């Protein structure tokens, strides 16, 4: 298929439709309201369901109810909205319902700002809602990658019967880039008759399905949590994705960065290399599961003096970088937030400073 020029938010919306998703519930919030605006026209064209809910709390449960039928469903929001959805996300993870949440992050905490940020890393990766659950978190660095991740998110959610989150920053949502919708990423929803509350008649058997999250017997709740943990462990084995950029045995500084921040880092790396400073980068594409071994392997390269986490947040990604590096190399953080994006020059200056000080 030919490439078309699209804004990130609209491309994400179209990707969901191309992936076979026909159901969308949302509440408006900057900087991603274009998704809802686009789908309010697009979904009726394909006989889909579009509904603007009364709050993100309600939307998260509309997603719950829709996912409980076994059909594909997704929502998009931005940071404060995801906070409100977090109650529902915990219940959805507990109930093992496949669905997709997109967070086009803006600055926080509180009302924060409306400009790009990566400040919801912990919320996405470490929890957000209560209880021992995990989301499979995909972090696109371009509009094309956002499209592909959006299309892959549905089969992934179904494979694990777990919510998948696309974690993008405001830049991903707002920038225009050429995109291609790959036909090979169109998939059929996985069979759901074993668990979906889709009515007994439809399944043609007199055995009812029950979707619940309450386990009053401690051993049952423990067993339920072990079952969930086994899924998360399987994600750690099968879904870790990352990209190495300019990682070779000569590198003296390793950057770790994701999303659009990683694109700034690429530019910085190219320019530092022109100056003769060998710097490389590991870019996590999945934030959970985190590419821990890839970061460690790159950090272990013979010449690496230090590892630098570059993020649009105040020291969140860096905790997983430290956990990955396991003390093998010193780990530093550099970041800005509130809509301020570190420039290539600032990243270069920080890289030079760290290298100078670690000689």
């Amino acid at each position: 298929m030919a490439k078309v020029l699209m804004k990130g938010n609209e491309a994400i919306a179209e990707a969901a439709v191309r992936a076979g998703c026909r159901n969308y519930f949302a509440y408006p919030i900057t900087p991603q309201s274009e998704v809802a605006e686009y789908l309010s026209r697009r979904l009726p064209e394909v006989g889909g369901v579009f509904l603007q809910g009364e709050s993100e709390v309600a939307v998260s449960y509309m997603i719950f109810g829709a996912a409980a039928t076994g059909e594909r469903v997704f929502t998009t929001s931005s940071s404060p909205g995801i906070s409100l959805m977090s109650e529902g996300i915990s219940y959805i993870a507990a109930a093992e319902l496949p669905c997709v949440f997109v967070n086009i992050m803006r600055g926080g905490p509180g009302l924060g700002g409306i400009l790009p940020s990566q400040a919801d890393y912990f919320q996405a990766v470490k929890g957000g809602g209560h209880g021992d659950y995990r989301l499979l978190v995909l972090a696109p660095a371009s509009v094309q990658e956002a499209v592909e991740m959006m299309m892959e998110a549905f089969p992934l959610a179904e494979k694990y019967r777990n919510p998948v989150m696309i974690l993008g920053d405001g830049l991903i949502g707002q920038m225009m880039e050429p995109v291609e919708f790959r036909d090979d990423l169109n998939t059929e929803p996985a069979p759901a008759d074993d668990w979906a509350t889709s009515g007994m008649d439809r399944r043609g058997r007199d055995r009812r399905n029950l979707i619940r999250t309450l386990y009053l017997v401690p051993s049952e709740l423990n067993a339920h949590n072990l079952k969930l943990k086994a899924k998360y462990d399987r994600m750690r084995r099968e879904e870790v994705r990352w990209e190495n950029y300019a990682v070779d045995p000569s590198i003296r500084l390793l950057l770790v960065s994701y999303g659009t921040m990683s694109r700034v880092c690429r530019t910085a790396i190219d320019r530092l290399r022109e100056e003769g400073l060998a710097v490389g980068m590991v870019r996590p594409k999945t934030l959970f599961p985190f590419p821990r071994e890839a970061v460690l392997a790159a950090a272990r390269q013979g010449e690496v003096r230090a590892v630098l986490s570059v993020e649009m947040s105040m020291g969140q990604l860096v905790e997983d970088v430290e956990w990955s590096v396991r003390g093998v190399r010193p780990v530093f953080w550099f970041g800005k937030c509130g809509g301020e994006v570190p420039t290539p020059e600032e990243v270069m200056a920080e890289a030079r400073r760290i290298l100078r000080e670690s000689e």
Partner: protein
Amino acid sequence: MGKTFRRPQALAETPTHYCPGCTHGIAHRLVAEVIDELGIRGRTVGIAPVGCAVLCYNYFTFDFIEAAHGRAPAIATGLKRVRPDLVVFTYQGDGDLASIGMSEIVHAANRGEKFVTVFINNAVYGMTGGQMAPTTLPDQRTTTSPFGRKVAQTGMPVKMAELLAALETPGYIVREALIRPKYIQRAKKAIRNAFSYQLENRCFSLVELISTCPTNWGMTPIEALSWAEEKMLPYYPLGVFKSPEGGRPAPGAAERSADAA
């Protein structure tokens, strides 16, 4: 001669966890009878609340979802929008629906979602030990209003049926009671109407049911029935507050309330 009174197929053959004299069981039976009579068990999905009825799916024999506290109407919305062919109902207590879930129920009703809500008003939070609910009567003692509900601090009890009937969107909004056989007959009819309206894709329905919680009211089951009749019915009049045929309140609501009280 065949059996004239038997367990509805939609009701499971199992003892319930409800306290002796609790009216939750009556509500379950009425819902199950209606589902049997309408022959819709195979395409019905129930949504349980958080409250004493959290495990109510154990007593029904069709698909069920257990909601988060107050969120059942949003789950029902998602389910019904995606699968309009399903018959969907929520079953909710007064803490669940009139307090934490107030927003979800009002907006679902206002959108005219085509599902049924069975609303159990027992004037307390039963499950958590009898705390004050939005429906607790003035001066009623609860574990969090030990000196009686002081309306100067906590306002007047919320009348959900009246509140939802005030919405301009068409709906079927009715209040009945589970405390005397004559009211129970009417409650069954209301539940049947509500499910029938859903089958006709007509409107949202709320059937509020005045119920008892002898355990947390500190009464015997018999005392509780009398208390509900003497104290609750004057404040919570029975009747149809709105019907999709039009009119608000529906003709007859006033007389029916008077005759109920």
